[in-house]
């Protein structure tokens, strides 16, 4: 039994399409706004960053913490969410 949240399951369950960055698990309104300010307005752009970092969850977590001020839990959750999405659809 996984301990993923509903948001995580919703995101990983289907192609992200044009979903906003707040659809990512761990990314709420505050973090989403900060990411959008930096140009990451869609989840797909964040996915791009994740892929640039070679799908390394640790590095992505670090980047996310630096870029948006996320805490460890949020960053890890987002990284895990993206990784599972990649496993399913990429």
């Amino acid at each position, binding site marked *: 039994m996984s301990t993923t949240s509903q948001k995580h399951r919703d995101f990983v369950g289907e192609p992200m399409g044009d979903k906003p960055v707040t659809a990512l698990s761990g990314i709420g309104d505050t973090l989403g706004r900060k990411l959008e300010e930096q140009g990451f307005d869609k989840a797909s752009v964040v996915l791009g960053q994740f892929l*640039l970092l*070679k799908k390394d969850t640790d590095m992505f977590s670090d980047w996310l913490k*630096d870029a948006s001020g996320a805490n460890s839990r949020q960053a890890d959750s987002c990284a895990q969410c993206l990784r599972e999405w990649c496993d399913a659809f990429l």
Partner: protein
Amino acid sequence: MPDGCISPECSSGVQWNHLLANSDQIPGHTWRSKDREEDPDHTEIPDPRTLTDDELKAALLHHGVKAGPIVGTTRAVYEKKLKKLLQPDESGKVNGAEKAVVYSDSEEEEEEEVEEEEQKADGEEEVEESVCTESEKQTAEQTDLAKQESSQAKLPYQNGSFPYLQCFMPSSRLHARPTSNRESKSKWNSRNAVKSSERSRSRCKEIPVGISRASSVDQHSGLGSGVPSGSQSVMSNGCSSFSSQAFSITQMVKEMESRSLISSSTDADRELNVSNVQEHRSQPIRLQIADRMKNQSVYYTPQDSPHKWGAQPPQEPMKDIIKEIFPETGTTPTGIHATRRRPIKGAAQRPVQYGYPATPVSPATLERREMERRRVPIRIQILVFLIMACILYFIYVNLEDICVVLLDSLNQGFDSEDGYSLQAETEDTQVVSGQD
């Protein structure tokens, strides 16, 4: 960096000049000539920001990190990573040793590491002292008592050989504030219980198996249980159970203090400490009760403990407390009060339950039950079917005779009115049956 250098040699030289200017920051950095351009791969360049993308990538690869494309957004991450890789090379041993302290598992390891930790005790205590606040001093004092007992006079003033430094506060405070204990204790109690439980919970996650085992035993036995270690187990608690029992213990302590603590238990305390030390070399964590009881007397325990090894079971202090709290319990020779806990559901000796409550049933099951109540049983259905089949067979075989009989009766019924039409019909049917 000087301007006007366009040629590649000049640019690399410029870069090297810049680097050399920073060389004083690097201990043991060797001066290299400008001509050697391959040095970035071999030397540890302290400032990743001065590297080009390729050089950064090469440096990361040198440390075993396969970096992806170094773009605008990824560059910062990789620079940070390189920095992290450069730093731990120098301080890796210290971190490893500290982790060894945290993750010590068995008693043997504890004893071996005791000496190591003593040396580190000073450094860590300073850290802890800076961290802990006034409100935590009380718990510090209490928990320090346990430490003192277990340290065996190695470091009478400090945590010493106590392997679980993270869980406790420095003992120096105990010595400094013996009198203010009682007045402010009741105030600090509940707060400390929560705080200490939180801190201990957060810090004592890696409690060794020994303690966790003992604490789990304590949890099952509850207060005043008849665990073989007797009242010791009541008093001792692992960090894991500390939080769960902290509030009840706090209440007990409050009651104790309200009736003015026991003064006669210096010897009992020492023996208590002795037996505690003896039995809990792996469980140095104590209840607040025991700690409070000892107060100043504990300070002497490390020196007295070797002499009173295995003395009479120090039950008096615990007995009094328990008597106050549970006045209806009788005295036992050993002072051990065993209260049977609630039987565990599923245990072999639970009382037989004859009347079980109705289990919740799904609507589908209810429907099915209703249906089956009204249905005719299958056997009866088959029987009826067979009977009908026989009847039809007879009718088929004896069609003619039956028809005659039926028509005759009909004729009799309709003689007065439709006799002719019926006769015509009977003639037709007879013709038909004759053709069959």
